[in-house]
C-alpha cells in the first residue's frame, strides 16, 4: 500500500483495495490513537475517490474512424475454409 499517492489519483480498484486494507488495520484494534486517526482520514479520502468514480457522468460513444467497409481482397474469404454454399 503506498500511502504517499494522493487518493484522488488512484484508480477505482486501487482506491477500493486500499480502503479494505485500512478497515482491516483498524479492525485489528492494535493501532495507537494517532495511527487510528491517520488511517481514518486516509480511509475518508479513498472513499471520496471511489465515490466520484462511481458517480461520474455519462461518457460519449466514439465511433471508430477507420474505413472498415472496404471490399475483401480476392480469395480472402475463401482462404479461411468457410464460405457460403
Amino acid at each position, binding site marked *: 500500500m503506498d500511502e504517499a499517492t494522493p487518493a484522488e489519483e488512484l*484508480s*477505482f*480498484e486501487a482506491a*477500493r483495495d486500499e*480502503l*479494505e486494507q*485500512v*478497515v482491516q488495520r*483498524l*479492525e485489528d*484494534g492494535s*493501532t495507537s*490513537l494517532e495511527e*487510528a*486517526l491517520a*488511517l*481514518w482520514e486516509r*480511509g*475518508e479520502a479513498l*472513499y471520496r475517490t*471511489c*465515490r466520484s*468514480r*462511481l*458517480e*461520474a*457522468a*455519462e*461518457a*460519449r*460513444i*466514439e*465511433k*471508430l474512424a*477507420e474505413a*472498415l*467497409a*472496404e*471490399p*475483401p*481482397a480476392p480469395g*480472402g*474469404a475463401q*482462404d*479461411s*475454409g*468457410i*464460405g*457460403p*454454399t
Partner: protein
Amino acid sequence: MPNASSSEPAAVASERRVYTVANVNRGLARRVDELPALWVEGEIGDLRYNPKFGFTFLTLRDPDEGATLSVTMARWAFERIDPRPIEGQRVQVHGKVTLYDKRAEVSLRADRIEPAGDGALLARIEEARRRLDADGLFDPSRKRTPPLWPRGIGLIAGHEAAAPLDVIRNARARLRSARFVLAETAVQGDRAVPEIMRALAALDAREDVDVIVIARGGGSLEDLLPFSDEGLCRAIAGCSTVVVSAVGHERDVPLCDLVADQRASTPTDAARLIVPDARQELENVERLRSSARRCAERVVVRARERLEALAARPALRSADYWVISRREALGRLRGVLDGAPQRALAARSERAEQLVARLRAVAPQATLERGYAIVIDERGHAVRDAAAIAAGERVDLRLARGAAGARIEEVRTDG
C-alpha cells in the same frame, strides 16, 4: 426412317450409317466420360447398402422437379462416411457420370457424399473446430478475465443493429460513465469476416480500449457462419486485448464463442462481464467507510475513557489535593495535642474524687453520728494530736452530715 417398301434404288440404302447397339453404347459412354466430375445435390432415396456387395446403390432425387439420378459408390468408400448417410437425407454427391455400356444406363459414380444444407455447413464448422482445438486455442488456461474498470470498451457490431445498443444500454445502467469505441461492420455475408478482422486489429491496437466485445443478435446457421470462420477465430485468439463474444442466442455456439476469453449469451450478460455494478460497488465502499469510522471512533473513545479514569483518581482531582490531605492530617494531630492537658487534668481530678470517695467510705460513720467530727488541717491531713496544729490555723471540720470551716482559738495539749 426410310420406308422399307420405297422405290428408292438400293444405292441409297447402302449409304445409311448403321451402328451396332454396342457401338452406340460405347460412343455414348465415351461422350459421357468427357464430362468432368461434378457436385450434385439431392435427396437420398432407395438406398441399398449390403455389406456383402462391393457396391452401394442409391437414387438421388431432385425435390423440386422430381428428376432422379442413379448413384453408385464403392462399398468401402460408403462405409467410411461418418455419419452414415440415410434415406431421405439431403446430400451433396461428388463424382463422375458414367454410362454402363452393356445397358446404356447412366449413373453417377460417387467418390464423396456429404450432408447438404445445414448439415454441410455444420460439417465444415466441425472441421474448423477440430483444427482450432488441436492448436489449443480453446484451452481454458488461455482465457483472461476482463479488467474491472475498462477505460474504453471496443464494440464490434452491425450498422444500426439492436445487439450493440442493448449492450451499451445494459452497461450504462451498471456504470454510467462506461465509454465505448464503436466499430460498425458487416455481420453476415462475404464481407463480414474481413471487416470484423480489420475492426479487431484496429481496436486491439488502441491503448485506451481495455476490452473488446463482438456483438451480434441471433440468426440462421448461415447468417452466423462468419463467426465460425477459422481465420477470424485465430485473429480473436491472437488479440492482446481481452475479447468477449456476444454472438447469437444461448443455443448458438459459433466457434468465436469457444476461442474468445469470455462468452456472453445476452446483452445483460455481456454488460455484467465488462463493467462493474456501480450501485453494488458504492454499497461496498459505503460499508467499508462506516467500518473505518466505527473502528476509529472506538479507539478514540477507549483512549478518552482511560484518560478520564485517570483524571478521576483523587491524586489528580484537584491541584492542592496533597496540601489539603496533609492539612487534614495535621489538623487531626493538633486536635489530639490540644485535648491532651484537659484530658490529663480530667484524669487527675477524677483520681482526687476517687480518693475522697474512698476516704469517705472508710470514715467511721457511726462515730461521726455520735457527734464526733474529723478535723482536717490545711494540708489535708486528719488531726489527732493538738500539737500538730497552732492557734490561728484554718481547719476543716467534717461532720456526720456536711462540713464546716473553723479557725483554732487556742490549743491545749493536756488532756
